[in-house]
């Protein structure tokens, strides 16, 4: 097999992290480089990078579904909204370097809405780890958000006590304007997310409890399915396609 090696600068661009972060990851073994050339410059094997980005989604999922809550690594952990806002703006800036304004503004808005939803519904009530997991890959064109919060069923049951399972709750959250924060009138967030995804070349996998949905461009209805795994809070993976 022929190895395709790319420079540390190129790798930083692909993963959306700084060169310093890559050097640190190399030191801790999180993502190992290959030293090459007379000066021993760091290079990365493209297949290692692909594996790494796949792992990010798995890491988020494992973190969200683990029975025991532990804080994620600092680069992907947003304990407060302020940290999330700052990293969201960093993502926005990176997307803006080579993607059209439609993708930049809508993907940032969708990620912002999902991430802030986690804070809105769990503030003061986080079962264990507070805050959210937030990572992205510019190469894979994905954004991953997860929380270990109460989940949509518990939140919506406060205003819709007749809800009995996560599948019903997830459907309500994406189709009806209801809020788990009575007496406040709100609850447009996930309807907005749905509209943006189906109107553009985006995708969304969203799981809460043992229910998930998958949305893509042109979808008309919402199909909620039983998941094989259980996530008490929420897990979301947003995809944005290559320019056609």
């Amino acid at each position, binding site marked *: 097999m022929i190895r395709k090696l790319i420079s540390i600068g190129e790798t930083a661009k692909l993963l959306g992290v700084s060169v310093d972060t890559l050097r640190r990851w190399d030191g801790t073994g999180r993502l190992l480089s290959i030293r090459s050339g007379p000066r021993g410059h760091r290079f990365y094997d493209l297949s290692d990078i692909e594996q790494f980005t796949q792992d990010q989604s798995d890491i988020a999922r494992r973190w969200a579904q683990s029975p025991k809550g532990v804080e994620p690594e600092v680069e992907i952990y947003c304990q407060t909204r302020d940290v999330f806002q700052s990293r969201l*703006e960093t993502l926005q800036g990176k997307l803006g370097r080579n993607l059209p304004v439609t993708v930049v503004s809508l993907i940032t808005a969708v990620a912002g809405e999902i991430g802030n*939803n986690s804070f*809105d519904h769990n503030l003061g009530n986080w079962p264990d780890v507070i805050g959210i997991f937030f990572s992205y890959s510019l190469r894979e064109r994905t954004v991953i958000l997860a929380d270990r919060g109460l989940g949509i069923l518990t939140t919506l049951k406060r205003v819709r006590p007749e809800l009995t399972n996560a599948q019903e709750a997830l459907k309500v959250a994406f189709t009806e304007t209801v809020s788990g924060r009575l007496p406040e009138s*709100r609850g447009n967030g996930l309807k907005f997310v749905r509209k943006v995804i189906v109107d553009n070349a985006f995708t969304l996998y969203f799981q809460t409890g043992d229910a998930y949905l998958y949305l893509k461009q042109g979808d008309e209805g919402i199909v909620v399915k039983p998941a094989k795994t259980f996530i008490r809070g929420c897990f979301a993976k947003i995809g944005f396609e290559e320019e056609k």
Partner: protein
Amino acid sequence: MIIQVKKFGTTLVSRPSGREAWLAFQPVLNEISAGEDIVVDFAGVAVLTPSWADEFLTPLYNRFDGRVKLLNTDNPSVSASLTILGK
């Protein structure tokens, strides 16, 4: 009067920041004369969510019913947020 939304920031995402914008702007809103139009100008806003907009625009509409006009709403996230809120 014209409200330049970009003066609150260009990535307007969370409910608390929308709420804070609304509260901070009260002294200015108190100076608006009867019958004066309120023009909300979104020029320069890069990202808007319905959460932020709901905290700022919904009370604005409630207070100045029929006098609120929206300007420069062509950013995709601005127009999508306004559509969801029915503005």
